[in-house]
């Protein structure tokens, strides 16, 4: 639907030939401030939880101090593997995170590693040094924001995410109880990546995901891709936020689906070759099987267009009881291909 509204918005821009705009002061009473959870558990990793608060809808905020003022500390958090063990999470800073959780977090926040995903660590650079490099390509105040965040992790390494297992998150903070349940789905991976050179643009290629889709296939997927030359972090594709309800292809057998190139916020894609990759790109697809609640959460985040003539206000679908945000299980795999 967002594609549809996006199309209409572009077309309606012609009507805005006559239009003008101005700042308007809205006298809106702020709502009750809720706790915000962003938490996940990958297959093969422990859980990672960040806890923050909401802020008012309009005004000027300093990014560097925003996270510090919003981050919620000293929460009591447990994760229970249904049918397995329960662990108590411990508060940590960014620099204390184990490498797998650090990578997951930096990917989620699209923070580039100057030397790529793992090369920086292999070369012996500290995270601080890498982030200092990153400041050249990312807003420095955003890095300050990231630095001030607090994380809750399982320091005992006794709870490792597995496909097909459900996990319960329980949070107690400021006298409030928050809880949520998620499942790391059983992996339904792709077969391989392939590419075909563009007939019209010799330096560009269309990358395809080869996938076998049996009957009754209802896998929800979050997919993103990165290119080694310019972006060292994963970006959802341009059109649908990297969300795919592959149930619509159920029964199609083995098919090729186009993998559309993602673009960073500061990139200005050429419309005629939008979605195509370039010769020399080393492309890594991050393919994450997710459960329905996680799909709905990201779908609603991506599809919120505000209450305008061409879009509707979308209430974000959270799986948290007592708060907002998402407790997500990801069954993640990576596949790489290089355009020759």
């Amino acid at each position, binding site marked *: *639907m967002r*594609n549809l509204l996006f*199309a*209409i918005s*572009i*077309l309606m821009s012609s*009507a*805005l030939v*006559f*239009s003008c*705009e101005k700042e*308007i002061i809205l006298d*809106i*009473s702020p*709502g009750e401030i*809720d706790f*915000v959870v962003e938490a996940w558990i990958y297959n093969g990793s422990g859980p990672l939880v960040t806890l*923050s608060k909401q*802020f008012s*809808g309009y005004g*000027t*905020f*300093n*990014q*560097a101090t925003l*996270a510090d003022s919003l981050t919620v500390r000293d929460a009591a958090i447990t994760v229970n593997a249904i049918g397995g063990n329960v662990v108590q999470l411990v508060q940590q800073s960014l620099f204390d995170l184990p490498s797998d959780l650090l990578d997951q977090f930096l990917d*989620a*926040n*699209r923070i580039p590693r100057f030397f790529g995903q793992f090369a920086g660590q292999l070369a012996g650079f500290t995270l601080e040094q890498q982030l200092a490099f990153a400041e050249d390509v990312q*807003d*420095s*105040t*955003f890095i300050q924001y*990231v630095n001030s965040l607090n994380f809750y992790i399982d320091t005992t390494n006794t709870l490792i995410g597995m496909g097909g297992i459900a996990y319960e998150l329980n949070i107690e903070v400021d006298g409030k109880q928050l809880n949520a349940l998620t499942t790391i789905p059983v992996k339904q991976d792709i077969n391989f990546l392939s590419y075909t050179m563009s007939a019209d643009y010799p330096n560009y290629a*269309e990358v*395809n995901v080869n996938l076998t889709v049996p009957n009754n296939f*209802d896998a929800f997927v979050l997919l993103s891709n990165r290119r080694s030359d310019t972006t060292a972090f994963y970006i959802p594709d341009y059109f649908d936020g990297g969300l795919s309800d592959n*149930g*619509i292809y159920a029964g*199609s057998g083995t*098919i090729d689906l*186009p993998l559309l190139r993602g673009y960073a916020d500061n990139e200005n894609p050429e*419309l*005629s*070759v939008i979605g195509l990759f370039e010769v020399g790109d080393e492309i890594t697809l991050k393919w994450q099987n997710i459960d329905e609640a996680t799909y*709905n959460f990201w779908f*609603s*985040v991506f599809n919120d267009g*505000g*209450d*305008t*003539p061409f*879009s*509707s*206000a*979308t*209430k*974000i679908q959270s799986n948290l009881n007592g708060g907002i*945000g*998402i407790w997500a299980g990801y069954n993640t795999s990576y596949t790489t291909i290089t355009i020759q």
Partner: protein
Amino acid sequence: MRKCLLLILIFGLILTNQVKAQKQFTVSGYVKDAKSGEDLFAANVYIKELLKGTTTNVYGFYSLSTDPGTYTIVYSYLGTTEVEKIITLDKDFTLNIELSENEVITAEVMVTGRKADRNIEDAQTSVIELEMKTVKELPALLGEADIFRTLQLKPGVASAGEGNSGLYVRGGGPSQNLVLLDNATVYNPGHLLGFFSVFNADAIKSSTLIKGGIPAEYGGRISSVLDMTMREGNMKEYEFEGGIGAISSRITAQGPIIKDKAAFIVSGRFTYLSFLLNPILERQENPVSIPWFFDVNAKMNFKMGEKDRLFISSYFGRDRFSFSSGGDGGLSFELPYGNATTSVRWNHQFNGKLFMNNTFVFNDYVSKISAGFQENSFELNSGIRDFGLKGSLEFFPRITNKFKAGYEYVFHQFTPYIFEANIQDEAFTSEIDVKYGHEFALFIQDEIDITTWLKINAGLRGSLYASTGPNERVYFNGAVPVDTVQKGAFDSYATYFGAEPRLNARFKIDDKTSVKVGANLNYQYIHSVSQSTTTLPTDLWVTSTDIVKPEIGAQVSLGLFRNFKNNMFEMSIEGYYKKLWNQIEYGDQPVVSANEEIEDQFVFGEGQAYGAEFYAAKVLGKITGWVGYTLAWTNRSFPDIDNGKTFYNRYDRRHDLSVVFQYDINDRWNLNATFVYGSGQTTTPVVNRYLISGEIVNEYGDRNSFRLPAYHRMDIGASYILKDNGKRYSDLNFSVYNLYSRQNPYFIFDDVNFSDNGDIAIQARQVSLFPILPTITWNFKY
């Protein structure tokens, strides 16, 4: 059911008494325009000695039955010279009359040329009859004379604001209005995403909006009826007329096929701004594309003897938006949509008292979104197609009694959002089937003068709807399919029956004053729900099913009507209360799966609307115009929206004021001006925000809990007649839209700015569409 039977019994008794009373004779016939031979709808025919009369039906037919005697019958119609005929009524006979246009229209002539006190006499309450002359004269956006925008100037009819020609009638939505063009339903009456209505004023003969007390002959919608008829074509000579405007041109040709026996009219409009500007605009760094539209109205009518007439009319219109990033294989979008209607009507006059009409109707509304990218293409198709048959018998037993009964059957075919994709030479289609519905209705209604002071128009409509196959319906739990049901062509998912009583009553206080009461209960079996704050061509029409129940609306209204100064001034105050059941909205969440039925995204609730409408008009003289003011409330309550909390819906306008001024300065110059004021539209505000993966996410408050700034605007216009020698006519129409360039809110968006020092500034910005826009239109006729 008992009440229904009682009503039928009352009708029967009334009719029986009327027929049995005494031997009467009937004078009947058609009233036509002397110049063109076209039927005149709502012409006044009355017997001077009895001070009783009637008006012609939409086919120009009238019938007067009364006691034997010698009478003077007076025929009159707006802008024509009245005709008096002295008759001796000692047998049934036919008297066809042609009325000639007034050469000079004076206030005195117009007093008699118009049925001046019809607003006092008629039983029908809450009705607006729009004259095409007014539509064409008033200043218009970009010079496009627009029936819908003129209707929005009347009390009880609110606009959706800038850029939306949808009609919000007494708190109802655009999809709750029955819009008829020559008996065919027009499903999307908006061009250019609703900036203009699809109706070409050159092709329309009459336009009647019924806001309350909807007669039993109309059904299928719960808010209002807009019944329009197309012109029929000049039976006597060929005529051409047209105009060249800022964004479009139009041309109409009409004339006899066989003189005085058959005629045609063809009228077309097309926009050309896109052809001039798109080559430039599409080459910009951020290319945009101006959309275009065209529409064609065509009609033929044939006299098949004295008692039979055949009308064939069609409308075809298309809008197309397109966008291309340029280059081979680049990104491209197209949004073509439009209506097509055809109606074939056969009138038969059995005798002077009995008139029959049968209509075959075909409607088709299609909308498609298509996108292309490299070797891949995507399409999202939707629409609705109807085949229908309607018929009615009008019986005129006495001068004081008009009885009408009829039937209606419509076969609906709904195309939901059907997704088709071609990816790498492989085709994919979503698994949603076409839906079918059968809508059937019978009605009876009787308009009768019970006494000199009491006139009623009462009726009953019985409606039946079945949603059927052949198709397959997948039931979901969330986004996961859990069950599949297959139905054949005669198997129904759900069948509904509705008994819909209707009543209008007029209590005449004196010759200048009457009080009217209107009441109606309506069922609506097909539905359209919009996901945005406006109506879009992609809004889908859906059938009632086992999940989607029929919408039901009940309304009562009470009005005081009074004329002053020999009917020069009209005044009315009307109050209404409307209760709505089974209302439909999208839930708070977006559509999840391409395979999911759209109805799975709906939530259901109730609503109500109430308010008061004040109207004062000067209808005669060189200076005419009106002031209309509406004070209204409309709200909805849905268990699945904001935990059932009642909210004002998007059609809520607390205050709505319209002032219209027209001044015929002399034979050449005409000045006019309009002013509108409306309370701001409701919107759903952002109350808090939060960060997810470093991105800002919005937390919304209650639905429609914030109101945008008020809307107001003044337009002025003038017409100058360049030439008018009886054979050739031309004028220039000057129009200034938004005279004081008010920046009216179109919508609000959030502007997020990151400054160099790390500050994030989030502010609301209001987008306004049209500043002051002067336009000139040249009109001609010969």
